[in-house]
C-alpha cells in the first residue's frame, strides 16, 4: 500500500519514482550537509571559513600578482611576484646545464613522453617491447644525451646538472631500481635458505634504519675514503647509489606485505601444477602480490620523489635546491614565499600525476571479484 492510500494487487506494484527531496542535488545536500542540526551548523561554519580564507589567497596568487617583467623593479603590486619565477625559470628547470645543449634534455623528455603515451593506447600490441625500451633502451639513450662525449656531443659534467631535470633523473633512477631490487630482497627475506634470508634482512634493516641524509652524506664524504688513490666516483653516481639502496629497502617491505597477504593455496596450487620457484613467483604470485600493494608501491615512489630534495646536503642542486639558490640571490631577496609556493606546486603536479596513474592502474587491473 503506497502513501497516498492507493493499493495495488499483490505482485503488481509498479516501480514508482523516488520522492524529490531524497534525490538529486537537494537530496545530496540534505543527507550530506544538513542532516542534523549539529551537521548544519558545521556546514555553515565551514562555508564561512572557506569564504574567509580562499579569496585573500586567490588575490595574492592571481589577481594582485605581477606577471610581466624582467627585473626586481617590476615587482610593484601587492601580490605574488611571479616575475621572479619567470626570470629564473630556465635554471629551475635545468640547473646550470648550458643553454645551447638544452635540446638534448628536451629530446630525451620527448622520447620518454612519446613512449609513455604509447603505453596508454588501448589494445596496442607490443606493449612489452615499449616497456622494455623504457627500462633498458631509453636509459642508455638518455645517458648518451645527457652526459655527452659520444657522437660529437660535448661532455657536460654532472655538477652542472640541476633543477627539475636533476630531480627527475634521481627519482627516475631511484624508482626504476627500487622496484626490482625490492622484489628480490622481499623474496630473499621470505626464503628458506638461511644465508640468503640473513643477508636480505641485514640489508633491509640497515638501509631502512638510517636517515636518507646520513646515507647521502656518507656516500658523498666517506665513500671516497675507502677507494684507492686517484679513483674518483662521480658525486651524482654516489647519490644515486645511496638513493637506490635506501629506496629498495622500503620497497622490499611493501612487497613482502603483498606476498604475505596471498593465501597459501595460491602457492600450493602453483607448486602442485609443477611450476618451479621462479615460474611460480613470476606467473602466479608476484602479479597478484604487486597488484595488491599498488597503493603502497606508489606511496613509496611519491615519497622518494620528494626525498630527492635532500641531495642539497651534498651540494647537488635539484628543483628545490635551485629555488632556494634563486631565493638567496642578492638581487632577488624577499621572494622566498613565491619560491616555495612554486616548489610545492611543482611537486604536487608530479605527485598527483603519479597518484592518478596508480588509481587508473588499479581500475584497469581489477578483474572482477
Amino acid at each position, binding site marked *: 500500500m503506497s502513501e497516498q492510500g492507493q493499493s495495488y494487487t499483490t505482485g503488481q506494484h509498479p516501480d514508482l519514482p523516488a520522492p524529490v527531496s531524497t534525490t538529486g542535488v537537494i537530496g545530496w545536500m540534505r543527507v550530506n550537509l544538513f542532516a542534523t542540526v549539529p551537521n548544519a551548523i558545521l556546514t555553515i561554519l565551514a562555508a564561512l571559513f572557506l569564504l574567509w580564507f580562499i579569496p585573500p589567497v586567490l588575490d595574492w596568487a592571481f589577481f594582485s600578482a605581477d606577471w610581466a617583467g624582467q627585473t626586481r623593479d617590476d615587482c610593484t603590486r601587492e601580490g605574488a611576484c611571479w616575475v621572479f619565477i619567470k626570470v629564473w625559470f630556465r635554471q629551475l628547470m635545468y640547473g646550470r646545464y648550458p643553454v645551447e645543449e638544452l635540446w638534448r634534455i628536451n629530446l630525451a623528455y620527448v622520447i620518454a613522453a612519446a613512449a609513455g603515451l604509447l603505453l596508454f593506447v588501448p589494445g596496442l600490441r607490443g606493449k612489452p617491447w615499449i616497456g622494455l625500451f623504457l627500462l633498458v633502451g631509453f636509459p642508455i639513450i638518455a645517458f648518451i644525451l645527457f652526459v655527452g662525449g659520444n657522437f660529437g656531443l660535448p661532455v657536460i659534467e654532472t655538477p652542472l646538472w640541476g633543477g627539475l631535470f636533476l630531480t627527475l633523473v634521481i627519482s627516475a633512477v631511484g624508482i626504476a631500481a627500487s622496484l626490482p631490487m625490492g622484489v628480490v630482497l622481499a623474496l630473499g627475506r621470505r626464503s628458506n635458505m638461511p644465508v640468503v634470508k640473513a643477508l636480505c634482512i641485514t640489508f633491509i634493516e640497515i638501509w631502512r634504519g638510517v636517515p636518507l641524509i646520513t646515507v647521502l652524506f656518507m656516500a658523498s664524504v666517506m665513500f671516497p675514503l675507502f677507494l684507492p688513490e686517484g679513483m674518483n666516483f662521480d658525486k651524482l653516481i654516489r647519490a644515486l647509489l645511496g638513493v637506490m639502496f635506501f629506496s629498495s629497502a622500503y620497497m622490499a617491505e611493501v612487497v613482502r606485505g603483498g606476498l604475505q597477504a596471498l593465501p597459501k593455496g*595460491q602457492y600450493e*596450487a602453483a*607448486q*602442485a601444477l*609443477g611450476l*618451479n620457484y621462479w615460474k611460480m613467483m613470476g606467473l602466479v604470485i608476484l602479479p597478484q602480490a604487486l597488484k595488491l600493494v599498488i597503493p603502497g608501491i606508489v606511496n613509496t615512489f611519491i615519497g622518494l620523489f620528494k626525498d630527492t630534495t635532500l641531495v642539497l646536503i651534498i651540494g647537488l642542486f635539484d628543483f628545490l635546491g635551485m629555488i632556494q639558490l634563486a631565493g638567496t640571490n642578492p638581487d632577488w631577496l624577499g621572494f622566498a614565499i613565491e619560491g616555495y609556493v612554486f616548489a610545492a606546486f611543482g611537486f604536487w603536479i608530479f605527485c598527483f600525476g603519479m597518484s592518478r596513474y596508480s588509481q587508473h592502474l588499479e581500475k584497469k587491473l581489477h578483474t572482477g571479484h
Partner: protein
Amino acid sequence: MSMNPHTQESHASRSHMAISDEVAIQMNSVHKWYGQFHVLKDINLTVHKGERIVICGPSGSGKSTLIRCINRLEEHQKGQIIVDNIELTGDLKHIELIRREVGMVFQHFNLFPHLTVLQNLTLAPIWVRKMPKAEAEASAMKYLERVKIPEQAKKYPGQLSGGQQQRVAIARSLCMNPKVMLFDEPTSALDPEMIAEVLDVMVGLAESGMTMICVTHEMGFARKVANRVIFMDGGEIIEQNDPEEFFNNPKSDRTKLFLSQILHH
C-alpha cells in the same frame, strides 16, 4: 543388507575398469611429525594404476596430510614414498618430475584469480610441458568441454559459481595429463546443489581409468566408484576394504563409530 541389482551392476562395472598390476604410488613405513606432533604413523600403502581410493576419517586424522605428502606439499620425515617409480626425496628435480604426473584438486579450488579460465588451464602446459600456445588452448577447450563449461573460457574465476570453479580446477589439473589425481575434500566447500555436478565429473574421470585418491565425506561417491575405502584415525590406517565390505562389515570399533556418525544424518 543384501546385494541388490543396483550394487551388483556397479560392482560389475567397477571390475570392468581394469586395475593394472603396475604400482602408481608406494608408501613404505611413512612417518610425519609437525614439530613434536606425530601426525602420520607408519603408513603403508600401495596404489595400483587405475585404482580409485577413497580415504575417510575424522578431522585431524591425517588424511589430507597423507595425500599432501605424495606431491611434497608436506614433507615426510621417515619412510619411503615412490611415485611413478621416482622416489620422493628432498631432490628438487625428483619433486618437479613427480608434480607433473600428479594432479591435485583442493577444497578451496585455488584458481588463479588474475587469469581467465583458459589462461588458468594453459599456464602449466605452456610453461612446464613447453607446449605451444595453440595446442595448449585446444587441449584446454577439450577438457573444459569434458567438465561441461566450455562457454566460461574467457571469464575470470571470480565470476563463476563454486561448482563451476571446482570443475575448472579439475580441468586445470587434467590439462597436464597426470598419471594420478589427488582430491583433497573437493566438495566440502560447495553448496549442496553444486556437489552433484562436481561428483559427476569425478565419476566420469574414474570411469575413464584415472588413478584417483580422494579424501572425501561423500560416501555415495565412494560406493559408486571406489575400489578401496581407507579409514584413518589418529594418523594411522585403521581399516581398508572394498566398499561393500567396508560399509556393511566394518571390522574396527573406531570405523563403526565413524560410520554411524556420518551415515545417519
